């Protein structure tokens, strides 16, 4: 029994992390208070990192937490921290009005997915045959195949930042009259 459990420990953990990621993603949609939404997103990212780690791609897991939590979410939390917590719009109703219908729909969807794919559940890759996708292979693929996509994305991000600044400037000009 214990031996069986140990042999499938990776898979159990994988499904544990996946379930937690799923629940926090759902919480992120349902919750109303900005900081709690941000926290739900943070935990979703961390659990997804755990899923990646168990699938054997440790550095993708590290990047997932490093970039999404360590960089993106830190800035979001920083901004939310400066919001007025007594803002009425966040506190009027704790959850969206579609809370119960949403929950029922979500359960139905989860059940449909689980029933439909029960036999095709992926198992954790650690110990499975085949070369692990390590950082060397990742770097080669990244620098030979995907560098253009990456650079294009950064250009897009810079454009977005410039656009955001332009919008703020424009608004300020209007406020001054």
């Amino acid at each position, binding site marked *: 029994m214990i*031996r069986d459990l*140990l*042999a499938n420990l990776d898979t159990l953990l994988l499904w544990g992390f996946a379930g937690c990621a799923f629940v926090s993603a759902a919480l992120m949609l349902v919750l109303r*208070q900005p*900081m*709690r939404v941000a*926290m739900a997103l*943070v935990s979703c990212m*961390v659990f997804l*990192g755990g899923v990646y780690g168990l699938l054997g791609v*440790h*550095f993708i*897991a*590290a*990047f*997932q*937490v*490093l970039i999404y*939590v*360590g*960089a993106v*979410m*830190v800035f979001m*939390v*920083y901004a*939310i*921290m*400066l919001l007025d*917590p*007594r803002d009425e719009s966040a506190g009027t109703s704790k959850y969206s009005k579609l809370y119960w219908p949403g929950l029922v729909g979500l359960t139905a969807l989860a059940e449909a997915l689980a029933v439909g794919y029960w036999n095709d559940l992926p198992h954790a890759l650690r110990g499975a045959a085949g070369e692990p996708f*390590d*950082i060397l292979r990742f770097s080669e693929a990244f620098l030979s195949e995907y560098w253009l996509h990456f650079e294009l994305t950064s250009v897009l991000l810079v454009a977005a930042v410039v656009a955001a600044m332009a919008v703020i400037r424009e608004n300020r000009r209007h406020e001054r009259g």
Partner: protein
Amino acid sequence: MIADLVIALVFIGYAISVLMGFGTILTWVERKQAAVMSDRIGANRAYIRLPFTQVKLVWWGLFHGMADGLKMLLKEDFKPRTYDWYAYAVAPWVVFTPVLLVFAVIPFGGTLTPAKLWAPLAGFFGERSWPMQIATLDAGLLIVFAFSGLTIIGAMLAGWSSSNKFSLLGALRAGSQMISYELVLALTILGLILIYGTVDLDVMVRRQSGTVLGFLPAWGIVYQPFAASLFLAAAIAENKRIPFDLPEAESELIAGYFTEYSAMKMGLFMFAEFIEIAIIGALFTTLFLGGYNLPYMSDAGFALPGGAAVALPHGAVVVTQLATFLLKVFLVCSFQILIRWTLPRFRYDQVLTFAWKFMFPLALANLVVTAVVVWAVRA
């Protein structure tokens, strides 16, 4: 499979007891070293009296840590009325847990072969050997940064959820300071990654067991002395200790982002800070001071510069490596405390200027020079 689990549990138990031990001892070292530096006697009042005798064990004030812990556990657990009790309750743990998790990828010894330590163990473990590290991951250094990024969120959450203006200001300062210095910290290490060609911490330690110029140990600090000093400065700033303790500057913000925390919840913040001193020590040791090896030492024994080699039995190697690692970490911790009692606090704008206009360009310059040299040597 069960052998793997047993080994993992043993390593995890060792790591947790080492970190907790360092956390406790460092609270004492901080007081006693401060006393030594300012020519005082320091903490010497707490004692344990042997039952039914008048014998009082003082032991240089070592029991003060126990007294502190008891006080924190027994104090009233004051809870302020906040707008988010959940965030308030969870914040100390968001600060504390990642600090412990970082240690998972740090190697605290070479390879362990239980069968060679004690022959009867071969029946259970076979002839297998394990690297003395909780998680052997190819992304080691990235994991360190991923987890240390999480503590920023904890500090901001604590300050925000306390509904206190001092706390909020402390959280703002903590957020911007830690973001700035984390960048510098990562940049200083890039040079080492270029030299060693890996982010796996265990491989990095093994690459440091050779020699440079025939006699110098091939430690990171020999290759990158400049990066080492930048790393230590940025790491102390990341840990928010004097001279960078603006987020909790008592003369300005009472206790900054954890002003509203009392009893053991405040203790968790303090404890996380002391454990992080040990984590910085462990990282510095691993990256720049040859990790768990003495100079000229590897898993097989010593290979001295003259060409002489001394082979050591497996048990001696394991014990030496464990002890060397702890000693090096302790020395780096002590050095950090030395800095803490030497320098005065910066002004807040100076802290950020120092990060962005002084350390950041220097770290970049160090990286460029390293890249050019590595390229020239390999070509």
